[in-house]
């Protein structure tokens, strides 16, 4: 951690704990307490919304579950806070699992729909189950007792502040760990994530359950803070406020969550004071007009794009002067703020300020390559049957179209096996079948003797098959190093708890992974680009990074899907050299490629597909001269360029 950040954090910590002394007014202390409680929930919500990019419309409900579990445990069961608080966390997390497990199985807005339903139902259930929750009457609590002494307002504030700091540290550790990388990966490229052994479904569920736990904690603390809870606090408006806080403050940052909490807690008071609101509306309008004028003058934007914010802020100012109070229009203001943030302030205020300061999000920085570190550590050259991969009579049918028509393929251990064929011949389909993205309509695939047909891509990846993609599927917002670290995700045995506290086991595994990643990056020639965001790398380097990331899986079999596509001649030379070195380490390679020179240079065997069927197989030279292959590529029957008895002059393998 750099010095500036450390200093700023210490200052903030001092201010946090000195607050009640500086501002002894109990109203403000309670307000600050609410901000801290909201912040705890928002830290968790940010994992779901900011990192995995899902929408949850039920966090007010989870918040309510936390509050009511505490209320029931304390008042009905007469137990202490050290039972109530963990119970709230656990039960909220359980509800989170019940929601997320079915809803996240399908892509689409289903999580949003299910959580919306959940939030509504929870409020209804709390209202109706009067035997448990006292229904609309609500539950009254007293502050928790520490060592037999009931805490007063200020002491409870300190307790909440301590919880908030703990929550911040836990979330921060979690997100800086391999789990945080997994969350980001599944958002940047779900398909690459699955193929690197990070199951998108599983981690989305983890993210939601963890955020539910935080919501439960916040709810529990809230119940003690308010000392009275009733069903109509936990309504849809609260969920919207939570979401607004996360996106307005800034996603993927802790300071954003804190800022968001401050804004939404103070917002209602702001709206109650019409003079203050008018002044702020005028300020916003001036900012919008002046900012747009400057941007237009500098040609950074077009009139169309600034029209909406300018008109909106001017209208808002006009309206604020016409009306006598804004309280009735509270929700409209929230709605307008949400719209504004979603389209114009996508990284929130903190993100916007960071951009102005020219700083991007912070990344884990790479370590130097230690001498003697082996990029292939962990990839045991397994002795076994000479046949590594056996594809038997695989049929892949889409409707009436047979993309693969009963294809057999045998890949020998430690060979470089090329797979070529004209467009639409089924090569990429084969790739997707081998990695579990498609389930074949018929036929089997066996890897190292065991059948892998029917397994998920993540499981197949963890069995030892790694791949690269025809259209580069890197995790764009992460650095080169972090991309490789995702490939090394499987080397971590640490649990969520280890990640949350950065236990010694976790630190050991992280250090080892970083060393290995550095070695891999050096191997593919990207050592000096390790801290660059993947999306900023030149295209050729991106392709090499994909290979490096795949190596992290300790694969026995590496599938390369058109690795030379779009590369310049020097890049291709580098690629060939790297493939040779990988092969020298005992890894078997299957290569789809159109660049014949690459195929000829490095493949031991070549299989040719056409129209979903295998039409030739053998050494590169033999295949290149095979009449059927020439016909498949150039067309033979209708007027030949070169027919079997009449080979074209330049057929000499070169």
């Amino acid at each position: 951690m750099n010095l500036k950040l450390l200093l700023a954090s210490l200052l903030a910590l001092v201010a946090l704990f000195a607050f009640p002394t500086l501002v002894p007014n109990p109203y403000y202390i309670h307000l600050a307490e609410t901000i801290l409680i909201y912040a705890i929930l928002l830290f968790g919500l940010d994992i779901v919304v900011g990192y995995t990019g899902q929408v949850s419309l039920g966090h007010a409900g989870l918040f309510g579950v936390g509050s009511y579990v505490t209320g029931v445990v304390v008042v009905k069961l007469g137990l202490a806070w050290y039972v109530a608080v963990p119970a709230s966390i656990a039960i909220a997390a359980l509800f989170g699992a019940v929601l997320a497990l079915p809803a996240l199985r399908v892509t689409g807005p289903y999580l949003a729909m299910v959580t919306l339903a959940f939030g509504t139902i929870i409020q209804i259930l709390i209202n109706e189950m009067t035997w448990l929750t006292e229904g609309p009457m609500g539950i009254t609590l007293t502050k928790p007792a520490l060592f037999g002494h009931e805490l007063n307002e200020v002491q409870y504030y300190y307790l909440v502040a301590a919880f908030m700091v703990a929550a911040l540290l836990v979330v921060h550790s979690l997100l800086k760990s391999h789990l945080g990388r997994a969350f980001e990966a599944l958002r940047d490229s779900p398909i690459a994530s699955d193929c690197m052994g990070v199951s998108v479904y599983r981690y989305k569920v983890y993210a939601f359950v963890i955020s539910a736990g935080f919501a439960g904690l916040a709810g529990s603390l809230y119940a003690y803070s308010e000392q009275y809870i009733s069903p109509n606090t936990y309504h849809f408006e609260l969920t919207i406020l939570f979401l607004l806080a996360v996106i307005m403050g800034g996603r993927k940052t802790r300071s954003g969550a804190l800022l968001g909490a401050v804004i939404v807690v103070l917002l209602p008071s702001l709206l109650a004071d019409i003079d203050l609101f008018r002044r702020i509306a005028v300020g916003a309008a001036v900012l919008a007009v002046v900012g747009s004028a400057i941007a237009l003058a500098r040609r950074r934007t077009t009139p169309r794009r600034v029209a909406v914010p300018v008109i909106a802020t001017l209208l808002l100012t006009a309206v604020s002067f016409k009306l006598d109070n804004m309280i009735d229009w509270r929700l409209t203001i929230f709605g307008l703020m949400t719209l504004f943030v979603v389209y114009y302030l996508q990284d929130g205020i903190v993100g916007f300020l960071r951009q102005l300061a020219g700083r991007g999000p912070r990344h884990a920085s790479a370590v130097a390559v230690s001498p003697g570190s082996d990029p292939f550590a962990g990839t045991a050259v397994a002795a076994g049957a000479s046949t590594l991969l056996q594809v038997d009579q695989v049929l892949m049918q889409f409707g009436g179209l047979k993309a693969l028509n009963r294809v057999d393929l045998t890949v020998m251990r430690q060979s470089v096996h090329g797979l070529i064929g004209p467009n639409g011949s089924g090569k990429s389909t084969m790739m997707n079948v081998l990695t579990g993205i498609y389930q074949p309509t018929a036929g089997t695939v066996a890897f190292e003797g065991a059948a892998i047909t029917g397994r998920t891509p993540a499981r197949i990846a963890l069995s030892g098959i790694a791949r690269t993609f025809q259209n580069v599927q890197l995790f764009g917002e992460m650095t080169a190093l972090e991309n490789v670290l995702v490939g090394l995700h499987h080397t971590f045995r640490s649990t969520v708890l280890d990640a949350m506290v950065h236990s010694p086991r976790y630190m050991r595994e992280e250090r080892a992974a970083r060393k290995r990643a550095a070695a891999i990056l050096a191997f593919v020639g990207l050592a000096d680009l390790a801290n660059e965001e993947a999306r900023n790398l030149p295209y050729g380097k991106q392709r090499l990074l994909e290979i490096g990331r795949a190596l992290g899986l300790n694969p026995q079999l590496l599938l390369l899907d058109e690795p030379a596509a779009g590369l310049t001649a020097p890049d291709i030379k580098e690629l060939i050299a790297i493939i040779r070195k990988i092969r020298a380490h005992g890894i078997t390679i299957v290569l789809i490629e159109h660049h014949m020179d690459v195929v000829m240079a490095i493949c031991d065997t070549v299989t040719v597909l056409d129209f979903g069927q295998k039409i030739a197989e053998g050494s590169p030279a033999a295949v290149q001269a095979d009449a059927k292959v020439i016909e498949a590529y150039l067309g033979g029957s209708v007027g030949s360029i070169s027919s079997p008895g009449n080979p074209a002059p330049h057929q000499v393998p070169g």
Partner: protein
Amino acid sequence: MLSIHNLQAAYGKVQVLHGISLEVPKGQLVTLIGSNGAGKTTTMRAISGMLKPQSGSVTLGGRDITGLDSHQIARAGLAHSPEGRRVFGNMTVTDNLLLGAFPRYAGARPRGDIARDLEQALALFPRLQERRTQLAGTLSGGEQQMLAMARAVMLNPEVVLLDEPSMGLAPILVEEVFRIIARLKSEGVTMLLVEQFAAAALHVADYGYVLENGRIAVHGPAAQLQDDPKVVAAYLGGGQAH
């Protein structure tokens, strides 16, 4: 009729077309051949509006259509039978054909007699005639290709772009497809044909362009290209520099 001048196009960071120029005179069949990854389909997409070109120009019958949306280009009279057919699987053969004539219904092109054109199209493709009420998704690959070509013709277009019509088809169907292309040519339809099957394409075309790594490597009358060794080299490697 169709003029492409110095067209450049990219997918994200990958520069695919480095400035290609070609001409498709009215009533002629011009073919664009080249190996995979050369940029043939990218060229088609850049012409028909599925992809916005970075620079260069595309002119249809004297009208500049560079950078327009695909529906505007279709309404200007350019029909594109895309790579992979892309027929509307949950609609009948007849509906697919009628949709090909959509701009004529919408008034963007001269209406003519759509019902008569529909019958003529089905007469040209007897297999589709038999299956006129069948859902397009249940047709075989070859039948879908014919449907895509017939659909393009329903526009009464100025130019037809045919993108790899032989892709994934058995040889006997490929023959049929090329027979139909020859028939369309004899009816005076202006076509730009992108093909991997260089031999068949050059056999039926008037003029040919060979695309390699996003550039035109060689071009000339189709008959001449058929004997040109540079064409083979562009496909199977061996010899020329990248």
